[in-house]
């Protein structure tokens, strides 16, 4: 059991939902970053913008990073509210449950640069991404707070899930390729592509989760729990991205990317299923004995398996003026999977340059049924040869504070020469 708890803990700690391979600076704009990414980062956001340049762009180890933590229900205010209570009344309990929306869902992820180098219209880079998510049914909290009544409680993977994934990538990108033979009425369109070789470090995901608690005077108390946690260490995969960008009018840039092309990670080392089964049927206090339940814990090797990274499309626009730039990105995957969401997400970003060397960054991402909305704030210091910055995000709250349901912190250092 300790191993399971440890696995869960590790999974949560390293977990985050994967939409794409993020980079540290995307946090500055609430992920409205497709057309803002330049240099090495462009290979991850829109390789069309690997624009030929006389400068070389350098990513240093560890300095481009982002850490994301969020949940759908709890915030500091709620924590303080609960901790300020000696006794939880029914209304207090209901307040907690009302925040759940079916389940308590949390995620934690991170990414960090290993090394990157962009030259001319090409780049090669490496980063490590760790991501995962966990959800627990609201019914569990309901049981904890209110107890049980006669009836049946069913639990399945919809509201009780766990997934964690970590991998390293080596990405090659090339961009700024003009698409030829376009009609004259169409402004020039840049094209780019990137290819990432993925080295799977570890994977945990819930293959099966079925639970049932029922209590009635006619059938007694029945408990059933079937969990299959599939884990793997060591895998290899690939994903590709193509991107296009264009400047239809001065100051406006639009772009489109399709990510996760042929995206998959095949896990073929140390793959195993950790199966846990518990069952107790028709239990009455009057006939309790030592063997009123059956419990099995099995670890068995399993065949290699693949995690699919469904294609994801991103569209964006960026308007740039002298001291301000505004952007909007829309992202949607073709299929919901462990790492993508088929529910679209709209995010917007802004950069202000009150002073040339000290840009201010803002972003907001509208929430959807799966993710809370978020706001980003960042500041950076820019010079002729580089830029350094730090930013944070707040989930479900305009400003980071007691009502935030999550925070992200990102940092970056770019050096070009």
């Amino acid at each position, binding site marked *: 059991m300790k191993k399971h708890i440890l696995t869960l803990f590790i999974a949560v700690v390293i977990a985050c939902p994967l939409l794409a391979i993020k980079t540290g600076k995307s946090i500055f704009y609430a992920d409205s970053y497709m057309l803002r990414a330049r240099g090495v980062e462009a290979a991850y956001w829109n390789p069309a913008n690997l624009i030929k340049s006389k400068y070389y762009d350098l990513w240093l180890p560890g300095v481009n990073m982002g850490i994301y933590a969020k949940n759908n229900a709890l915030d500091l205010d709620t924590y303080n509210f609960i901790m300020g209570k*000696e*006794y939880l009344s029914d209304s207090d309990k209901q307040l907690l449950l009302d925040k759940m929306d079916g389940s308590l869902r949390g995620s934690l992820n991170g990414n960090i640069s290993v090394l990157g180098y962009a030259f001319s219209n090409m780049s090669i880079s490496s980063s490590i991404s760790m991501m995962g998510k966990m959800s627990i049914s609201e019914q569990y909290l309901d049981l904890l707070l209110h107890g049980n009544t006669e009836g049946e409680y069913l639990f399945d993977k919809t509201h009780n899930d766990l997934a964690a994934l970590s991998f390293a990538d080596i990405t090659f990108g090339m961009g700024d390729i003009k698409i030829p033979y376009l009609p004259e009425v169409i402004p020039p369109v840049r094209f780019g592509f990137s290819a990432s070789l993925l080295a799977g470090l570890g994977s945990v995901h819930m293959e099966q989760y079925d639970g049932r608690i029922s209590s009635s005077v006619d059938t007694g*108390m029945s408990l059933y729990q079937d969990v299959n946690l599939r884990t793997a260490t060591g895998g290899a995969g690939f994903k590709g991205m193509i991107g296009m960008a264009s400047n239809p009018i001065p100051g406006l840039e639009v772009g489109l990317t399709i990510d996760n092309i042929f995206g998959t990670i095949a896990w073929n080392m140390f793959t195993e299923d950790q199966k846990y089964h518990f069952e107790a049927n028709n239990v009455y*206090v009057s006939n309790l004995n030592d063997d009123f339940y059956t419990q099995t814990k099995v670890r068995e090797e399993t065949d290699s398996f693949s995690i699919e990274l469904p294609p994801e499309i991103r569209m964006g626009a960026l308007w740039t003026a002298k001291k301000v730039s505004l952007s909007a990105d829309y992202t949607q995957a073709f299929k919901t999977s462990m790492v993508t969401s088929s529910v679209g997400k709209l995010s917007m970003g802004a950069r202000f340059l009150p002073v040339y060397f000290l840009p201010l960054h803002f972003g907001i991402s509208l929430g959807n049924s799966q993710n809370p909305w978020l706001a980003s704030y960042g500041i950076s210091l820019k010079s002729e040869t580089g830029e350094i910055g730090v930013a944070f995000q707040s989930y479900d709250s305009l400003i980071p504070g*007691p009502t935030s349901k999550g925070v992200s912190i990102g940092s970056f250092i770019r050096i070009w020469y």
Partner: protein
Amino acid sequence: MKYYGILLIAILVLLGGCEVKKPTKPKWDVDLAVPLINETYLVSDLVDDVNIITDTNDVLTLTSTGDVATPTFGNVSFTPPPTAGIDNADIPSGVPIQQSIPFLDPTGEVLFAYASIAEGVIQTKFTNMHPSADIEIEFGNIFTATNEKLRIIAAPSTDWVNHSLVGCHFGLIDSDEVIEEMQIKITSTSNQPIGTEIATMGLKMNLPMAFDEIIGKLYNFTMGLQESLASIEIEYPQGLNQAITLQDATITMILQNDLEFDAEFNGQFYAYNEDGDEVTVPILNDNGQNFHVTPGANTLEVHNSIASLLDIMPTHIEIVNGLFTIQSGEVLGSVRASDKIELDYVVKAPFTFTLHPQDIVVKEEIDIPISGENAKRIEKNALSAKLELNILNKVPVGATATAYFSDTPNIDVADNNTYKYTKVTTIYASNSPEGGSDQMVELTLTRDELMLFSNPHVYLKWKFSFMESGTPVTIYATSADYLRIKSMLYAKISVEY
């Protein structure tokens, strides 16, 4: 730069507002619904085929078995007539003498065609016997173990000579003629002329004898039962005898009569109850007559004569003055010394009874130990509890059950200082207007009442007050006769980490 100043101030204000309270341990209440029991207690489950059985009509029946026997019949004493003998008879040489001696029992109690002699002697005395005389007495009705006629060779003596008859027998085993006379044949030889008196003979066959087997007729012979073994002790659980009066009972006696004689059984049932009431009734058949017993197996069913015993709900029943009187008819019977009359009895009392509104206090007090850990949990977490009982009673017996709870032993239900509180529930008889269908009963325990269970021991005593049935009720043991109890425990507990 003023923008950055404003931004910095805003960040500081925000961070200052992020108070994180020290973790505390809030408490809350949780309601639990725990299935406690769902059992169907079939009346037929009481049947153990030993003490509780069902009769042919599926009526639950209390039964008890035992056995009793007469002592072994023993040897049959027989005293020949005083005239059985020959006094000073002259024995002539060479002249056979045949003589019949009367041998009928002068009392007329024992007549036999065959009798194996366990004890007995014949006395002879030969005087004035010529030295050359050879005299032999042959008994026509007495045989040796090899079925040869008994012969006695005369020897001169001045005193009576005893000749043991042990191992010999009168008559032959397949004889059906009662021996009334003893046939004697005396033969002699000597060197004296024929007819010369060669001895004077005396013969006595009138000494008492004992037979270990006879074929014949017996009159006025009796065999008593071993009374100390012929008793039945009845223990009524929890004084149930005060609450019910049984309506019916039978005693079936399977009697094995080893004797090849008919017999008549005389006897009485003697019974008393725990109040000292006594009843003695004769053991008679349903026609009011003594039971007649034939050789071999007999089944005697005592029914009517014991009905009056049930009026006092006896705790002890025994057969007294049990006596078998041998009855000889026209046909010869037989008996051996080891023969006896064995009696296996089966008492059957169907559960047909009248219920009286009598309180029955269960004598045994239930001690419920509460571990220190659980006591603390109850004290700390238990807020209230409710027991919801769904009872379906298909048995025509109803009762009000009262549970007495205390933290000290020796609960006296009549003294409310010896218990803390009571809980009462009523289960209606199936044949009552309120009974026969699902009955919901709720028992609640308040926080104060639950605190009793924070003591190291809780003592519980039950009292049952049966509802008067008025008319006799019968308990059947079919699949439709049961008491079903379903129960959910609803508890409110305080959760505190």
